């Protein structure tokens, strides 16, 4: 069964995933909206930067983050200069890492959902007296609902499952930066296969349940829209 360390790793993991998902949605929504509508020349460049974590080994990303967030790095140094702590080996550092690492999983579904809406419903809302912000929240967001569900679930699940970045910048401090994926690794190192089984099985089940729920919800939504097209 789970011991005290496993439980605190579970709490840290869920907290990290929840905070990161909220931040990802807050940052990713305007970014995805802008990317879905802009005709900016260098859009491809930005898209590539956001998608980098998909192809980059997580340790590479983690290494650069460690350099940036540590006391000698630009961000960590700035924090120290302002009288704060360097961000490496802290929960805040983990959040920053997770947000960057999971960004494509949030931005891409949102961008696709916003693109699929097209400009027409927004124009209709404009002729019905809705200001730009008003029509974003009352038309674009509800119509992009499947995108938001996919983005939240993927962002959350991907953060729960991350290993390389966390290993590099987290430092594996119990109760602070030790997450489940690393706890599993530690158990295996220590030949505690029973613990590793419990944690791995739990994560497997959680991921499966999350994915089944997105596919079910989105399928229902797609079917609804198909009915509309057949009319």
């Amino acid at each position, binding site marked *: 069964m789970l011991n005290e360390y496993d439980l605190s790793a579970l709490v840290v993991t869920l907290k990290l995933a929840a905070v990161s998902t909220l931040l990802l949605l807050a940052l990713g929504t305007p970014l995805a909206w802008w990317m879905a509508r802009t005709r900016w020349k260098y859009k491809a460049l930005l898209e590539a930067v956001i998608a980098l974590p998909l192809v980059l080994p997580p340790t590479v990303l983690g290494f650069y983050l460690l350099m940036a967030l540590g006391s000698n790095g630009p961000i960590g140094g700035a924090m120290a200069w302002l009288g704060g702590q360097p961000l490496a080996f802290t929960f805040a550092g983990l959040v920053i890492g997770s947000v960057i690492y999971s960004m494509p999983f949030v931005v891409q579904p949102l961008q696709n959902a916003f693109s699929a809406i097209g400009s*027409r419903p927004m*124009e*209709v809302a*404009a002729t019905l007296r809705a*200001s730009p912000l008003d029509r974003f929240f009352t038309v674009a967001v509800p119509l992009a609902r499947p995108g938001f569900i996919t983005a939240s679930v993927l962002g959350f699940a991907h953060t729960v499952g991350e290993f390389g970045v966390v290993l590099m910048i987290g430092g594996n401090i119990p109760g602070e930066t030790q997450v489940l994926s690393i706890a599993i690794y530690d158990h295996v190192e220590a030949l505690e296969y029973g613990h590793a089984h419990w944690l791995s099985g739990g994560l497997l089940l959680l991921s499966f349940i999350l994915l089944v729920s997105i596919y079910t919800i989105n399928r229902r939504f797609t079917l609804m829209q198909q009915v509309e097209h057949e009319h």
Partner: protein
Amino acid sequence: MSIDCRINIDRPNFSLDIELAIASTGITGITGPSGGGKTTLLRAMAGLEKNSRGYLRVGDAIWQDAMHFTPPHQRQLGYVFQEASLFAHLNVQDNLQYGMRRVPNSQRKVSIDRAIDLLGIAPLLQRKPTQLSGGERQRVAIARALAVSPKILLMDEPLSALDIQRKREIMPYLETLHGELDIPIIYVSHALDELARLADHLVLIDNGKVKDSGAIGDMLTNFDLPLARGDDAAALINGQVSGHDDEFQLTYIDFAGGRFTVAKKPLAIGHPVRLSIAARDTSLTKQHQSDTSILNIFPATVQAITAEGNSQVMVRLSAQGTPLLSRITRKSAELLALDKGSEVFVQIKTVALLA
């Protein structure tokens, strides 16, 4: 209230350069070949075309001039798009209320109940857009646009996405709007039959420019325009019901040039009606024929004659000021020695009652 509109749009391979004074009452039809700029003009009036320059005044509100550009959501207009474009996440009632809720109380002139009533959509209120037919959706879209109490209603080919049956279903509602509401309507369409039924004024736009504009009856019979050509060429007559004949089941309709006799219609005396007379359904005689089955014969003066292909000509006539068209063979025109100013009798075989 009048509408003054000067709009300029320059795009790499299209430019729009329109100057137009639009009537403050009735329906102004905008027609012309596709790609000519009809829809772009309408979108520019709504403020949906960002790089349009010019001047737009609706009543006492200036929506656009050199100094400022009122964004679409601050223009008091209603817009009906080609596809109904109802909000998929809202039911009919919430779609109707979306715009109305955002209109300040002092500006509300059309109540939501009135809009529902005019378009006959009361039974649909709780449905989702997916549960409506194409015609029903477009009626909801029209009601939604009316519920914002617009100073002007812009309609972009509202019927073109519908089949003939759905069109027939919506037409009467549009005619009601025309009669019941004091809101000028700008109605873009390439379908002359729709415009002949609905429009009072017509603007012909081609290649980004206004080719001509005027009262629809004059525009449809103007030989300088492509409208008065071909198989569908027809003249419009506005008249009113002047009596009924119960024995023969007939209705009489008076207009400036005389009295029409048509099959009986259940219309009150004095009711205004619009008739369409196709050029191909008329013939001309020099003398008034009395031994003919044709009942509708009117004296008229030839105003102009133009060739229609090799064997036919189109003749424009004036029956006491009302323009009429007649398409006859070139041979007949020569045998009758028709020329500008000739006095003739127009025999009308078929009359279509439009509204």
